[in-house]
């Protein structure tokens, strides 16, 4: 049996949206945490929603908050853009795996689908694709509903964060590091693949002690990548 030709159907969109439901809790949690941390950091509602709506990449938004400034300079702008790029460079891999599926798609539709691309949506869609499905509606439907969930939960988190009287008392100033460390658990594939993480952590500590600003994030992450490339 040959695989069906790539196509795009409304049924696929609906089916994709249903397939995305198991990803809701993770999205809601992360967006609530981001919204609360943004309010806590003093971002306006517009800035918070702007980050969620246009950047739409949770890890880089969280790291971005760590570098967020009240008054910007060209160098802090460049820093936040560089760090965002470093955090999100992994998306290149996601896109690369989708390329054969999207080869004959109209470019504007692919441009939209790729804007909405997330790890969760990618996992849902690649599973569908590997089972022989070719309906790009699945990709769009799962991605679009996750986007809406993300924005809604960001909004809810922002107000929850803004109305907590003394955020420090509840540890909310540390939501970002707590959440990030939790995310290490599902990434854990044994001690050996985690060796680059150790390198990244050590390099970031050293750079943090020696250099001002947030260079330690980029330096540590790059050291981890190099370690990953060198370790067979």
């Amino acid at each position: 049996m040959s695989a069906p030709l790539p196509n795009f159907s409304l049924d696929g969109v609906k089916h994709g949206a249903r397939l995305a439901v198991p990803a809701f809790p993770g999205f809601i949690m992360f967006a609530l945490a981001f919204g609360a941390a943004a309010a806590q950091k003093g971002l306006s509602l517009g800035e918070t929603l702007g980050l969620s709506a246009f950047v739409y990449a949770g890890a880089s938004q969280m790291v971005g908050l760590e570098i967020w400034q009240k008054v910007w300079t060209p160098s802090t702008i460049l820093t936040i853009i560089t760090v965002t790029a470093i955090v999100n460079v992994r998306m290149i891999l996601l896109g690369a795996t989708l390329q054969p599926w999207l080869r004959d798609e109209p470019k504007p539709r692919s441009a939209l689908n790729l804007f909405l691309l997330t790890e969760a949506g990618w996992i849902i869609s690649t599973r569908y694709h590997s089972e022989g499905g070719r309906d790009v509606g699945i990709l769009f439907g799962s991605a679009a509903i996750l986007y809406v969930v993300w924005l809604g939960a960001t909004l809810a988190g922002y107000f929850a964060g803004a109305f907590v009287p003394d955020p420090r008392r509840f540890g909310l100033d540390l939501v970002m590091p707590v959440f990030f460390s939790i995310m290490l658990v599902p990434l854990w594939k044994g001690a050996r693949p985690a060796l680059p993480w150790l390198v990244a952590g050590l390099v970031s500590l050293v750079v943090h002690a020696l250099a001002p600003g947030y260079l330690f994030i980029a330096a540590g992450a790059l050291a981890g990548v190099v370690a990953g490339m060198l370790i067979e």
Partner: protein
Amino acid sequence: MTPFESFVAGPWGATVAIAGMALVTYLCRIAGVVVMSRIRITPRIERGLRALPGSIIMATILPVIIDAGIPAMVAIPAAVFVMAVTRTDLASLAAGLGAISLLRAFGV
């Protein structure tokens, strides 16, 4: 101050930052599809990219944890432990934040 310096120092600074972040993120999202036919992702590059998410997390949190002191150093391993056992991010986040508030309440 150059015009760009005074521009980003003003009310438009945050917008410029968000626009810049959005632009590089979108470039990352489309780059794989666009350059796939030109650049080969070798096993070596793939290994490096696979190490990236965990490396970013470690590089971001370790200095922050150390700066935040003992409550963070106790609560974060506790949250990771709860996650490893329960696999529920909500419970683990609650455990971590709970531990921090408790330790701070006792003046640690």
